[in-house]
């Protein structure tokens, strides 16, 4: 062991350890008309129909476009469509069972061929194919047919009267792909078409020059883009990898990148970075809510493959099935502290899983914003949960001991520690676990650590919905959506709670036209979820991104892809 060796060990330790999280990506030269975008989750595929990942959908949204977008206020703006079909202009049929879209004339794909209604019909067929495993299938709920009436008209027919017919082809989840390119990729072959999935031909402002999966995408401007003079940028690089803090640093402090996405970083850290004055933060409050999911089924590991399965209600959780416990857990949490420590201006306390749009937000649960540990203790005492010698409550041999999991992220671990201390005050023991985000959100049915498998008592993450209509989102908590082997654990009712009233409301909601009734039903559904504490909402989160000061024209959009108006970006 010589000195050089020991010194190098020391040096490596100090540098590697301290800067392990610093993204060492060399600065791409910031040319005037070159745009550098950094998404710290790398893009793995450019076909939004085959990926549920926001990063993939947003990267693809620079290339392929839907018929209409949501703008930053949640209103719909036509993109490929000439106008938004409504009852008034006759686009939506009187019986609400079909909707007819007219395409703008003379739109061409980036390869020069014209866009037709057949491409739209094909895109629908592509996603609705039974073997395709399409991620956007929920957008096509209740669709019975999509047909091209002529080259510029497409009609979507529904099985039921659909008061909100804007599921298919509105928003970046379900864009139009080119029939000619994808016609051999239907069904089970969808995943095999690597060339197509990695380089879709689109109508959008950019086209893909090079795609390296899980690394980087190089785009150049689409010369045939329908709006002359746009996009302003000639080329763009879309880099993936790193973590939220290093992405923020790359834009705000070092200025290597022009735009960074999804910055869940402690407010004081962001504040320091903003003080460097090279960039600014963008925030938009959409429908994102950081929430605790309370497992209603038994997750005991001795149950083997019956763990966390609903099994028609025969597998209840040993103590979280007691409403008093769930209520006490929610009452003990001081949400304002969570916001101050972890989110700052990017978060607001909330008691609803459906906090926006405003018309849908229930006002019945505001009491939860004021923590009340005294009341929580009283509830638990009353329900017969007595404190043992170690301060943890027990009843009939069952200990209030919670395994609480979430994804690995500094802010989330902070929230975990805070909530643990709050629950200790009411005699609930908490064990924390954090899981790498790629695994936790990976949806791999073979992994025991996904949020869908939910082999824990409580878990925490954020969810939201695209667009402004919560129909699909709220339907996710219906009883038939319980995850399990029958649906590859892709069911969306993660808490596995069931309520007959809720299921009835879901059906009623899907046939109620926008207006007071629709708002009322949505609020009632929200209240059922929240007042039963199947889900404990914590924080209404803004979408936080960062842009360099030189970048102009960015309009932060929490309702659709953040890159929805990238054609207008300039310096």
């Amino acid at each position, binding site marked *: *062991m010589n000195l050089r*060796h*020991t010194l190098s*060990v*020391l040096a490596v*330790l*100090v540098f590697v*350890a*301290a*800067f*392990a*999280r*610093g993204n060492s990506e060399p600065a791409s030269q910031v040319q005037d008309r070159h745009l550098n975008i950094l998404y710290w989750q790398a893009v793995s595929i450019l076909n939004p129909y085959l990926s549920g990942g926001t990063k993939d959908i947003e990267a693809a949204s620079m290339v392929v476009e839907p018929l209409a977008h949501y703008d930053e206020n949640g209103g719909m703006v036509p993109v490929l469509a000439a106008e938004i079909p409504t009852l008034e202009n006759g686009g939506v049929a009187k019986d609400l069972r079909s909707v007819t879209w007219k395409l703008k004339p003379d739109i061409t794909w980036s390869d020069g061929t014209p866009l037709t209604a057949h491409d739209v019909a094909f895109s629908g067929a592509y996603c609705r194919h039974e073997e395709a495993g399409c991620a956007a299938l929920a957008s096509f709920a209740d669709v019975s047919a999509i047909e091209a009436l002529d080259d510029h008209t497409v009609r979507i027919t529904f099985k039921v009267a659909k008061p909100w017919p804007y599921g298919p082809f509105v928003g970046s989840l379900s864009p139009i792909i080119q029939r000619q390119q994808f016609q051999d990729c239907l069904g089970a072959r969808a995943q095999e078409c690597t060339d197509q999935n990695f380089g879709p031909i689109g109508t959008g402002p950019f086209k893909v020059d090079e795609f390296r999966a899980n690394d980087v995408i190089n785009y150049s401007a689409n010369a045939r883009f329908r709006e002359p003079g746009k996009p302003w940028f000639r080329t763009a690089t879309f880099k993936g990898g790193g973590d939220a*803090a290093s992405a923020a640093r790359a834009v705000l402090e070092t200025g290597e990148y022009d735009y960074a996405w999804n910055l869940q*970083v*402690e407010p*004081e*850290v962001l504040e*320091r970075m903003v003080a460097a004055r090279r960039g600014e933060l963008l925030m938009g409050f959409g429908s994102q809510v950081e929430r605790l999911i309370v497992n209603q089924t038994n997750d005991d*590991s*001795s149950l083997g493959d019956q763990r966390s399965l609903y099994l028609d209600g025969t597998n209840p959780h040993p103590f979280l099935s007691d409403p008093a416990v769930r209520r006490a857990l929610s009452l003990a949490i001081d949400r304002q*502290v969570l916001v101050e*420590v972890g989110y700052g201006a990017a978060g607001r306390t909330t008691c609803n899983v459906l906090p926006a749009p405003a018309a849908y937000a229930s006002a019945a649960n505001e009491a939860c914003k004021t923590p009340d540990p005294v009341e929580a203790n009283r509830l638990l005492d009353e329900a017969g949960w007595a404190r043992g010698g170690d301060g943890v409550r027990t009843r009939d041999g069952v200990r209030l001991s919670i395994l609480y999991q979430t*994804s*690995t992220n*500094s802010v989330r*671990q*902070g929230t*975990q*520690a*805070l909530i*643990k*201390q709050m629950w200790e005050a009411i005699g609930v023991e908490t*064990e*924390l*676990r*954090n*899981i*790498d985000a790629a*695994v*936790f959100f990976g949806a791999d049915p073979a*992994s*025991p*650590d996904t949020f869908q498998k939910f*082999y824990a008592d409580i878990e925490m993450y954020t969810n939201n919905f695209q667009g402004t209509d919560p129909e699909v989102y709220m339907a996710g908590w219906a009883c038939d959506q319980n995850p399990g082997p029958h649906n590859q654990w892709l069911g969306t009712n993660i808490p596995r709670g069931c309520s007959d009233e809720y299921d009835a409301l879901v059906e009623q909601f899907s046939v109620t036209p926008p207006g007071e009734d629709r708002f009322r039903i949505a609020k009632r559904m929200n209240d059922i979820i929240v007042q039963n504490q199947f889900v404990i909402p914590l924080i209404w989160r803004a979408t936080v991104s960062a842009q360099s000061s030189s970048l102009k024209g960015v309009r932060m959009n929490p309702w659709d892809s953040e890159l929805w108006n990238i054609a207008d970006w300039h310096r």
Partner: protein
Amino acid sequence: MPTEIPDTPRTHRSLWMDVWLTFRQHTGALIGVGVFATIVLAVFLGPFVHGVDPQYLDLQARNQGVSFAHPLGTDNLGRDTLAQVFAGGRISLAVGFAAMFLSLVLGTAVGTLAGYFRRLDGPLMRFTDLFLALPLLPLLLVIIMLFRDTLRNAFGPETGIFFLIVFVIGITSWMQTARIVRGEVLAIKEREFITAARSIGTRERRIVSRHILPNALSPIMVSATLGIANAIITESALSFLGLGFPPDFPTWGRLLFDGANFITITPARVLWPGLAISLTVLSVNYIGDGLRDALDPRLRDT
């Protein structure tokens, strides 16, 4: 060993006495012992002097600098950095040493057997190659996923994970030691003193334990010292992936990792755990260096 046969008339000294006398002359090693002892004492006795609960979140005192109540400041949740460094040190040192010991025992056993017994050489070294070729991270993931819940039920979340992590790091880091030891044993067993020992009828077991192992001690010591550092770092990597200790359970690696984002706000959060890891590794390396010299009969001052 040759030096045990007194070739000059002098008072009899035991092997370990000799080792100590030589070791004492190695300044670096002595400093290493001092630093290391200080760290160990501080980590285990520190909580009696500075009795703050490392887990307690004091929201009135977030991101504090140095103060009397918090000698090293606090983190962004108001936890006391000094108390966390103490608590983290106990875990990191325990993991580092236990894992190092396990990998050392495994590596030395495999290496000696492979080097000494020709028949075992092929199979054992291919076995070692097999382990070297395994992608470690996926292997760790699988082991932890398979046994985490079983151990958690048997020993509780913290002890269970401790055993698992020590075991996992131990059985995935013995291969280098095995290879080095095998090479050393191969060279030593051809030496004259082995032939001599054999010629007077020494049993193989005795040859290995009395003649070969003491002479192979220096490379073993070197890999042991490196093993500690390696174990501490692997543990922090596992914690990062969410497979190590629970996130509120401080270890030096995790403190460093959590503090990295706050390096401009509260540098103490990165500085002290980083320094602790570096000093531990450095001092253990120096101790190993001194031991190597002291154990090498050719370098020993007789």
